[in-house]
């Protein structure tokens, strides 16, 4: 068994060059649920929590970057994130309970690539960019292109997510987030939705809608966005966005919910969020 604990990004990259099969871990909240027998079969991990370059946030030209190993508790308490991206703070507060938020990380939520990941629709609606590092150096992947299929990502072997860049939104933008689950906290979502939008001169000037748990990957609701851009943010536009959103997704029946319920809820959540654009 090998358990590597690099103390810098360079050291991490060197380890992964030597062995791209190392399993990257941070808060371990999605890994440890496999149970003791499966865990004892794991023979090589690389711990990302001790790498300072992967922790916290920093302002960059035109936006904010958040390190991949930043926990949801850290995101919730970051003044910079709270000021610029309240929808991400809202999502961070609904990832499990306090104990989970103290361990689970933004990069882990992305890399685990569950269609139900709570923060993922927010990243989609915010037009996030994922910065990854590997033996060929660093590269950037638009988050919209990151999930390539159910539990599949654009990461190559030996590549690690190092940070997420969120571009600042124009003044007057509205952000909202809604998770629907069995309980208010500590439940995997049945439907999760994020909205970023802006109203100008009484019309919807900008609208980005994204949803989770309604398709094999988190998805932008582009047909719904297109259908109402330019309309006043009133009942007609809200109803239209909701019903088109419910049609353009591919939810399934599973242990947590049914496809029918997910469409029904998505329609109503989108409708209310669009009405909320008038703030």
């Amino acid at each position, binding site marked *: *068994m*090998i*358990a*590597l*604990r*690099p*103390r810098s990004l360079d*050291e991490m990259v060197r380890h992964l060059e030597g062995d791209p099969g190392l399993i990257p*871990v941070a*808060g*371990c*909240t999605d*890994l*440890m*649920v496999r*149970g*003791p027998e499966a*865990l*004892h079969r*794991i*023979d090589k*991990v690389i*711990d990302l*929590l001790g790498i300072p370059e992967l922790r916290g946030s920093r302002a960059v030209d035109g936006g904010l970057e958040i390190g991949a190993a930043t926990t949801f*508790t850290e995101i919730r308490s970051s003044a910079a994130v709270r000021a610029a991206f309240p929808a991400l703070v809202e999502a961070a507060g609904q990832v*499990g*309970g*306090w*104990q*989970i938020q*103290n*361990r689970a990380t933004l990069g882990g939520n992305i890399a685990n690539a569950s269609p139900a990941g709570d923060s993922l629709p927010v990243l989609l609606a915010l037009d996030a960019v994922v910065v990854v590092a590997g033996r060929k150096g660093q590269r950037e992947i638009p988050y919209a292109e990151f999930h390539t299929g159910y539990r599949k990502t654009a990461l190559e072997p030996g590549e690690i997510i190092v940070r997420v860049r969120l571009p600042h939104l124009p003044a007057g933008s509205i952000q909202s987030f809604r998770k629907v689950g069995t309980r*208010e*906290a*500590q*439940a995997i979502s049945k439907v999760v939705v994020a909205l970023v939008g802006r109203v100008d001169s009484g019309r919807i000037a900008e609208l980005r809608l994204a949803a989770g748990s309604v398709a094999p990957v988190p998805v932008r609701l582009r047909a719904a966005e297109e259908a109402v851009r330019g309309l006043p943010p009133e009942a007609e536009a809200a109803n239209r966005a909701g019903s088109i959103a419910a049609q353009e997704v591919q939810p399934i029946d599973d242990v947590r919910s049914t496809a029918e319920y997910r469409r029904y809820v998505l329609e109503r959540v989108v409708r209310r969020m669009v009405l909320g654009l008038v703030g």
Partner: protein
Amino acid sequence: MAEVESDRGGCRMTTSFLLNGQSIEAEGHPMERLLDVVREQLGLTGTKEGCGEGECGACTVLLDGEPVLSCLVPLFQCEGRRVETVEALAGRPDGPLRETLERFVATGGVQCGACTPGIVVTLAALLERNATPSREEAREALAGNLCRCTGYEGILRALLPALGPEDSKA
């Protein structure tokens, strides 16, 4: 310590950390759950396993003062860190947690008791940060601790003795 290696055959290693204020060395597979180390190897059975998959909060311990689920923490990540369990936290002779625990039975904060150790650990962390939490703050802190018996009212009353069940702010 930057890295840990042990021979592939044995899959065991020694991890050193502070447990309830004492330096200890635990032996085990690096991915061993902290929960199992605490209960089976160190004999501290106050920490309970409820669901074993991060949903219930019964196995809550403090890691460097932060509440975490010990069923989701691998042993190797405890190296050099501070772990506190319900035994030490509930055993403190005074402080806001002590006062809360003394009210717990009278208010009906305990019924079957399976969730109680985890709730006590979470409350210890909450009261450490905020000795006079509002009802809302207490509810949010406890959101990751499932209790199927009390409906939480008895727990909140123990925490907020001055409040009735409908009050919203301390």
